[in-house]
């Protein structure tokens, strides 16, 4: 955590709402994206990301700096929110709806249909990965967290994260190939 972020966190812990607002602006998109890629639903991503930041703001005084970025704490809350979401609700979003939601999230590439199609393939392949592999792939290659940060979020060792990453890429390659064929 850099000094600037640390100052914001301390101010937020002191009750300064605008300091937390700055943290919100900095981290909301990555948390939203993470949840969206996990759930495949825009409505669920909005609902859950709102809950994550509301929970973080309400419990900001309990946050303790432990050598990791503030985002690590937010990812942990997000991960638990998604797990609770799957526990309490059946995933009733059909593949078609997932595809439509996903495509609507992308900027309007008028002349880059192929790119949209490619991203759709990748998204569908990610949805078929095991949860830990999904988490590592999204945090590592989409949100660009370090292995150390990912290990902290998932409660695993860095070595374990590297192994999961290797297996996830291999599986993703296989799934994308199958998607292309179909």
């Amino acid at each position, binding site marked *: 955590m850099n000094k600037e972020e640390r100052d914001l966190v301390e101010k*937020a812990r002191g*009750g300064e*709402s*605008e300091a*937390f*607002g700055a943290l*919100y*602006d900095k981290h*909301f*998109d990555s948390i*939203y*994206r993470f949840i*969206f*890629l996990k759930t495949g639903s825009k409505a669920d*991503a*909005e609902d859950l*990301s*709102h809950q994550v*930041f*509301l929970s973080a*703001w*309400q*419990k*900001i*005084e*309990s946050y303790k700096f432990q050598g990791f970025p503030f985002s690590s704490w937010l990812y942990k809350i997000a991960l638990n929110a998604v797990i609770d979401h799957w526990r309490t609700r059946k995933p009733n979003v059909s593949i078609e709806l997932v595809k439509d939601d996903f495509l609507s*999230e*992308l*900027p309007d590439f008028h002349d880059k249909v192929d*790119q949209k199609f*490619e*991203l759709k*393939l*990748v*998204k569908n392949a990610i949805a078929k990965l095991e949860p830990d592999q999904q988490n590592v*792939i999204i945090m590592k*290659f*989409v*949100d660009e967290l370090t292995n150390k940060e990912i290990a902290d979020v998932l409660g695993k060792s860095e070595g374990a994260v590297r192994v999961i990453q290797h297996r996830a*890429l291999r599986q*993703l*390659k296989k799934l*994308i*190939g199958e998607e*292309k064929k179909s």
Partner: protein
Amino acid sequence: MTTNEEIRKSLNKLRIIGSDPEFKRNSRALILSYQPEKAAPFRLPFLRFAGAFVILILTIAVLTFELTPTPVLSSSFNPDYLQNEIETLTVSVQIEEVEYRKEANQTIASALNEVENTSVKHLNDSRLRDEAASINLNDSTNPEIDALLETVIF
């Protein structure tokens, strides 16, 4: 054949995914309108620990009191001990009384023998009379004494 590098590039492109700006704005305003929860003056885990420690100390104190009775107190309230004490006391009283009576009887018997023995001239008749007066003639504890007294008196 898709390479790892191609996959990584595709994954990186997913960063363009974002939320609706209006939703983000409204969500932010709503969240910041709430007040964060204030921490308790004393940390709950500490309170829990302190409370558990106090209960443990009290439990140990109670168990120590119950399982390690003091001799004075227990002996005072132990009914069996009290019963033994009383019985011992009664026996002691009885034995002492018997000893006393035995001694007294011997003394009286000696005195009466002296009185009966007319061959010996008693020098203090008034004393003998006083002694005779102090004897309870109705006490039938010792029949031998009764017989002697009858001899003396009658």
